């Protein structure tokens, strides 16, 4: 299976779900917390992403609850979702490691 680089909002949604099943509003607030309030997902973006991730088999519905007469649906990572997030995190980590080591070398050369 060919792997595509996932965009930051998607990465953050998957990271939020790595903590355990969460509902839509929970994902939104968690993504804001993880990104230090830099990424604030809105409902349109969030549900377009959730719909796509469900269709791709990356996430699935964990359970549904009715809270104050409103539907609350919890989502969780699937096996594929765990693998995709792991691969992406590893890739980003490797890139970041190279960037940090080169910046250190640059700083050492300048001093």
């Amino acid at each position, binding site marked *: 299976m060919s792997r595509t680089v996932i965009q930051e909002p998607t990465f953050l949604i998957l990271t939020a779900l790595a903590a355990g099943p969460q*509902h*839509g*509003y929970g994902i*939104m607030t968690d993504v804001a917390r993880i990104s230090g309030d830099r990424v604030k997902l*809105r*409902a*349109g*973006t*969030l*549900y*377009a992403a*959730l*719909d*796509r991730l469900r269709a791709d088999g990356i996430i699935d519905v964990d359970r549904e609850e009715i809270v104050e007469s*409103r*539907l*609350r*649906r919890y989502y969780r990572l699937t096996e594929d979702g765990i693998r995709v997030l792991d691969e992406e995190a590893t890739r980003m980590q490797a890139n970041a490691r190279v960037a940090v080591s080169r910046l250190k070398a640059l700083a050492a050369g300048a001093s």
Partner: protein
Amino acid sequence: MTAAPLEQRYRRLLACYPAEHRSTYAEEMIGVLLASARSDQRRPGVADTLDLIGGAGRIRLRALATGTPDPGWRDALALTSLIAPVLLVALALKQNLGWLAGLTWHNPVPYLYLAGVAALLVPVALGLLGLRRIGALAVAATVVWFAVQAAAPGGQVLDPRLAAYLVLIAIQAVALVASPGPRHALRLITRKGIVIALPWIAGAAYAGGLIPTSYPEPQIVARVAIVAVAIAGLPALITPAGRRLAVLIAVIPGSAFVVTVLTFAHVQFYDMSLPAALASLCLPPLALASVTILAARRAG
């Protein structure tokens, strides 16, 4: 109590989403939107509004790209793939009816012209044979040919007629790729539907001047006919597929109108006033769309 009007307004915005998406996520989205709203908020914010419209657009585009548009659009696009070539041929013949009628057996048969008109039916014929994508390629080739002609020295880039043709051809290409095609459209149209729709189609053709008359009828008759056919075609708008088909078809006169305004030349083409010209483009397909109210059994 501020939640009720805010919720109603959010629901109105969610109408941008495909019905299938709404049935799965609407209640959940409303819950999230209301949870994110300020306690005194009565209207959706600009950012939320744009985000919801953008989200709906992305979902619709993805459905189109993966070939899974909702049933209403699928039926409307299938009907368009059948109607568009019929309309193209009607327009092409109408422009030269006088010339064709004036031909006698002394004149050489205009094979080239007739072959050109017949070529407009090739994509739909391919679609009926189950070769939709090849048909769409044929349509795309026609668009390129038209564009090259228009861009050539002396070409009429801003001719409203050309714009209407090009848009109609482009819509046909999209319809062939993104829908089950004309075969599916034929299944949507029943014999009873055609019999009932025929007077509407004939009326629309008359109003639009597609059928020649041997005497100059008073303009008032044409106007009454246009209004009558418009009223007769209105039922098509109450079915989901009919509404969507009307949106697709409205793009054609819309593009012609924009080009007309851009050129600042005059608000006439086909030697008609603008309302009559727009009606002539809109009404025949709208009347055909009326068939859907009688025949689209699974248009919901």
